[in-house]
């Protein structure tokens, strides 16, 4: 990643600058800095939004650049959240237990401490034993490793099976939906060892940290912004060189790429696993800000929303994905938060909490039909780069290939 890379990609610098200005302004206007313009809960919303932008970036790499319409990337996001959540719950419960046992006449044995933690955590599902998957939960470094390894391995195994049998297009999308559905059904079971439908909670309380939530929310805002910034630079670097050429080739015409001697399956597996890990990191930063994670988070619909964000923002350009995720998720928060005035029609009142999804679905259809470049396409209007007229021909024979309207001059 040399200086010339940044110079050749001015949009990366612009993005980093915008991100830095945003993060600084939010910080200065936050409760933590005494100015009270932005409430702590809204700081958390903004921090979470940055994490959603990061997972959208991953989605854009895998779909917008490589043409794999994965509808399962939220499974990796959720798994990342679960992995960090395990440590957060364990470590915090350990402190509580230590406190309550401190005054006992006989000092508790290690086993007694672990048992007490188990009772605290698993009481809700009628158990007190630690399932084997919690083996590393006592250690932050090990559990951070799990944040990367568990989703990464799942993606590797799933991708290997799917790509090796050359499953593509709609069938691959369905398979990824099945994967995230299976994961969520598994997590719903109490026997899964992750507290079933209760999920993991209290994640906003960092063990051993006495700082107020106002301050902690700023820490996470910065951590999320940093992760997004690094993720953006790395993604831009990955797609800038020959690797980017190859994966865009795979998107438009994968058979042709094979005949050039590139192992298409290997590249797909690489990008699928790589983006799964990015999604996991985003999830690991998101859920401590959300405070709770439950199996509903990895429901199939979540991954579909992800594709909708990227489509609305404009796939195949990194800033498009970020803008799409930020815009749609913030607007969604606004609508579903009940702050938008209802529209009285006399015979019926449109309540946006219920109607927001209809509006979102409608905008998705409209964007797909009328402006396939999405919001990102506005930048082409400004710079005058119009899609060349190709008389209806897409950029390649494959299903995921760039459509005529998505082209750039």
């Amino acid at each position, binding site marked *: 990643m040399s200086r010339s890379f940044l110079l050749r990609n001015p949009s990366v610098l612009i993005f980093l600058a915008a991100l830095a200005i945003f993060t600084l302004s939010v910080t200065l206007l936050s409760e933590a800095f005494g100015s009270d313009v932005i409430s702590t809960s809204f700081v958390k919303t903004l921090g979470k939004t940055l994490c959603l932008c990061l997972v959208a970036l991953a989605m854009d790499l895998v779909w917008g650049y490589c043409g794999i319409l994965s509808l399962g990337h939220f499974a990796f996001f959720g798994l990342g959240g679960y992995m960090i959540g395990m440590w957060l719950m364990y470590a915090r419960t350990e402190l509580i237990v230590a406190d309550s046992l401190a005054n006992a006449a006989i000092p508790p044995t290690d086993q007694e401490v672990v048992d007490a933690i188990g009772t605290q955590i698993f009481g809700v599902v009628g158990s007190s034993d630690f399932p084997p998957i919690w083996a590393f939960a006592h250690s932050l470094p090990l559990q951070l490793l799990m944040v990367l390894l568990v989703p990464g391995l799942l993606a590797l195994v799933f991708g290997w099976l799917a790509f090796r049998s050359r499953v593509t297009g709609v069938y691959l999308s369905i398979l990824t939906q099945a994967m995230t559905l299976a994961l969520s059904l598994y997590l719903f079971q109490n026997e899964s060892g992750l507290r079933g439908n209760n999920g993991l909670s209290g994640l906003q309380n960092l063990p051993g940290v006495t700082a107020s939530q106002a301050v902690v929310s700023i820490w996470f805002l910065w951590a999320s912004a940093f992760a997004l910034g690094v993720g953006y630079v790395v993604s831009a670097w990955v797609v800038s060189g*020959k690797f980017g050429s190859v994966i865009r080739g795979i998107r*438009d015409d994968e058979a042709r790429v094979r*005949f050039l001697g590139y*192992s298409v399956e290997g590249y797909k597996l690489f990008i699928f696993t790589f983006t799964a890990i990015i999604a996991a990191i985003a999830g690991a930063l998101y859920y401590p800000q959300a405070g709770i994670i439950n199996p509903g988070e990895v429901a199939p619909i979540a991954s579909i929303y992800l594709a909708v964000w990227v489509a609305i923002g404009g796939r195949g350009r990194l800033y498009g994905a970020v803008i799409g995720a930020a815009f749609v998720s913030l607007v969604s928060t606004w609508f579903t938060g009940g702050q938008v005035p209802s529209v009285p029609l006399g015979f019926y009142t449109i309540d946006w909490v219920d109607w927001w999804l209809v509006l979102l679905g409608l905008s998705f259809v409209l964007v797909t039909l009328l402006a396939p470049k999405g919001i990102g396409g506005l930048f082409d209007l400004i710079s005058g780069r119009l899609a060349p007229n190709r008389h209806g021909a897409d*950029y390649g024979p494959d299903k995921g290939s760039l459509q005529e309207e998505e082209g750039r001059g």
Partner: protein
Amino acid sequence: MSNLLEVSGVSVTFDGYRAIRNLSFQIGSAELRAIIGPNGAGKTTFMDIVTGKTRPDEGRVTWGERSINLLKMNEARIAQEGIGRKFQRPTVFEDQTVFANLLMAVRNPRGSFACLFYRPTAKDRTRVEELASEIGLSDALSRKSGELSHGQKQWLEIGMLLAQEPRLLLVDEPAAGMTLAEREHTTDLLKEAAKTRAVVVVEHDMEFVRRLDCKVTVLHEGSVLAEGSLDHVTANPQVIEVYLGR
């Protein structure tokens, strides 16, 4: 002379239709060969078999000095072994520049990690520029290949083929959509390439084949009807009946 590619007794059936019937074919390591035959004779299917796109029902395809079995390999491995292919319809990456198209083809390690950390060396840049001037696209290096004319796309694909430095080039109807001057240039390029490697050209245009001045194989209904010099095969009454006489 030992053969570079040896295809023997190959048959393929598509939904009950026998597109290739007991086909046998050999080519030496520095040889130019033209394949002619009416539409549907199985010329493209033959290339599909050699490049691993289509698996034959029976027969053997062996490659190189050590007679490697190509039927066990996937398309990418076969390409890495040194078999390059130009398609009947020009297929280039239309969303990418001419430079990017050529650079992707230039002979370099093909693995994903090697590719991720690859940055074009001065040598590779020079190679791309050389190729571009050879195919008359020097001024178009930074243009998107989708903007090129049909003939230019054919050229670009030939350039990509040469960039791979294959030991065997399979070229499917290279002259379609080219002007007379461009056709002549193409024959020169192919003849030049055949000095150091094997080249198989499928072509309908007899003038083009005559200019190639090489051994000709006539395919008909999935098997070889005649083989020899152009004058020899065109004198064959069967060939005249199925192909030339129409």
